[in-house]
């Protein structure tokens, strides 16, 4: 048996895997947050609520409609994205010209509403969701047994993150999007409907959060409170990475997940706060964040 600092290597690898799973969720959520902030100038406090709604939609699809995981992977982000479109049209659209603090406060209020309603409808206790049949079990990679579902979460969410990065940084559509971030009036003058782009960007960011919710449903308890604590960690991740950079938010999301996993092995008491401590250190050293430009 190999030990590192007296801790069996299997335990370390197990926590590393868990850390990677959490890191993938952080990456997906902070990515959406960064994209929305870039174009709308709104810090979407409701991001955690959308993540939670995505997980609940998954659970409801199975429990009420009998539609399984693969359907949920498609339908949940669509449904939540649609909610995002409605909220953007009804509320957020009117706040682009005022202080960005109002956008934060509005989405804070919206997330309270979502949390309260779900707690009333489904109760405070968590629901469990089965791992889909295709992804059950473990695979033996020699030194440890990897749970297949966790590997699936990491691979699929990193693929989605990379795809989003590619879409924004390397395609024509992404170029339009970035141009609209820089100078919406000019882009509008070229005959591009900027308000529609803004609306779909919000829906897209929200759908990413919902997708993270679907992926997380089989590994955590689906509960009304699952989003509100996560969104604060994701805020810290975004502050550490620097809000402007898409790759930065992906890298810092995954990296912080891994660090959190290691902390759980070495000093479990600090695992809840390690991300916030790192944020404080980064702020003292590089106030703009690791990848941000002042």
């Amino acid at each position, binding site marked *: 048996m190999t030990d590192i600092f007296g801790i069996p290597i299997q335990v370390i690898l197990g926590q590393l895997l868990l850390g990677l799973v959490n890191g993938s969720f952080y990456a997906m959520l902070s990515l959406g947050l960064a994209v929305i902030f870039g174009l709308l100038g709104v*810090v979407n406090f409701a991001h955690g609520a959308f993540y939670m709604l995505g997980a609940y939609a998954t659970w409801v699809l199975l429990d009420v409609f009998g539609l399984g995981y693969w359907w949920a992977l498609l339908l949940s982000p669509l449904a939540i994205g649609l909610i995002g479109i409605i909220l953007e049209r009804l*509320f957020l659209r*009117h*706040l682009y010209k*005022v202080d*960005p*603090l*109002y956008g*934060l*406060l*509005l989405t*804070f*209020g*919206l*997330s*309270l*509403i*979502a*949390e*309260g*309603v779900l*707690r*009333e409808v489904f109760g405070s206790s968590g629901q469990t969701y089965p791992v889909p049949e295709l992804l059950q079990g473990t695979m033996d990679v020699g030194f440890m047994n990897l749970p297949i579902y966790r590997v699936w979460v990491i691979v699929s969410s990193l693929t989605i993150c990379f795809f989003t990065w590619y879409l924004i940084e390397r395609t024509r559509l992404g170029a339009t999007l970035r141009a609209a971030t820089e100078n919406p009036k000019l882009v509008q003058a070229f005959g591009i409907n900027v308000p529609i782009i803004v609306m779909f960007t919000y829906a897209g960011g929200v759908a990413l959060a919902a997708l993270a919710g679907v992926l997380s449903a089989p590994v955590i308890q689906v509960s009304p409170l699952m989003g*509100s*604590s996560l969104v*604060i*960690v994701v*805020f*810290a991740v*975004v*502050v550490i990475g620097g*809000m402007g950079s898409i790759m930065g938010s992906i890298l810092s999301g995954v990296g912080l997940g891994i660090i959190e996993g290691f902390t759980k092995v070495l000093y479990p*008491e600090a695992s*809840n*706060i390690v*991300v*916030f*401590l790192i*944020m*404080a250190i980064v*702020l*003292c050293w590089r*106030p703009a964040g690791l990848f941000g430009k002042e």
Partner: protein
Amino acid sequence: MQISRTNIFYIVLLLLALLAPWVGVYPIFLMTIICYAIFACAFNLMLGYSGMLSFVHAAYFGVSSYVTAWLLTANAWSTPGALLVGALASTVLGLLIGLIAIRRSGIYFAMITLALAQLVYFVCLQAPFMGGENGIQGVPRGDLFGLISLTDDLSMYYFVVVVFVLIFLFIQRIVHSPFGQILKAIRENEPRAESLGYFADHQKLLVFVLSSTLAGLAGSLKTLVLGFATLSDVLQSTSGEVILMTMLGGAGTFFGPVLGSAIVVALQNLLSDRVGSWVTVIIGAIFVICVMAFRRGIVGEWLAYQDRKRSA
């Protein structure tokens, strides 16, 4: 001597507050409102007069209430000492958090304070003397210098009213002082204030710490009134409540936070037994309505209406 209409309003309100327990208003309820009013007024120094949205104020409120409760129960301190040390604890915390948070402004500042508040919450959850999920129960009120016993609700009530009036006047003094004017200048145009020779970060840190002291004092008083300190005081939702109280009443007005806290506390008392989780939904809905329809808050809109009437 000319007494302005605002001052007449305040005097009438104070008389009503002094009379209220005699006409059958429950003193604990009033004291809760006043404690939250102090809390919201302290918060208003940040949001209203300096334009900084902080999500960390629950940490001050909660931590100082814990410190006061701990000193009174486990260490049998005197009441004034426990109150002051409680406020001192939140001052130190405010200084530490302020030094980190003021490195960014605007929306980043809000996010950083939120993350640091979560840090404080987890520390409180695990700190051994804070009693974990249960908090600290059975805090004695004690007396003031051996002269006035606070065990009686009525004497406690008048003590709370006196503290509130002093803090309210103190905040007015600060806002109207040169320091208050500099804060306003920084809020409106930070680079310009800097170019006039004011070191914005120092001024912002100063108001941040001042606000944390007063918020802490509010928390300590609340512990004394209700006799316990709980984890929920440190929670992010408490920061949300104080933001709502300030916004609903009117950020940047003197009376707004007081009115806001009266409305929110009354609403919570009225509804919590009857509707359960819907309280959260209603609070969220008020947030949405405030942001969408009246960003100046009730008092702010009233003042704006008066202005329009005068100029018309």
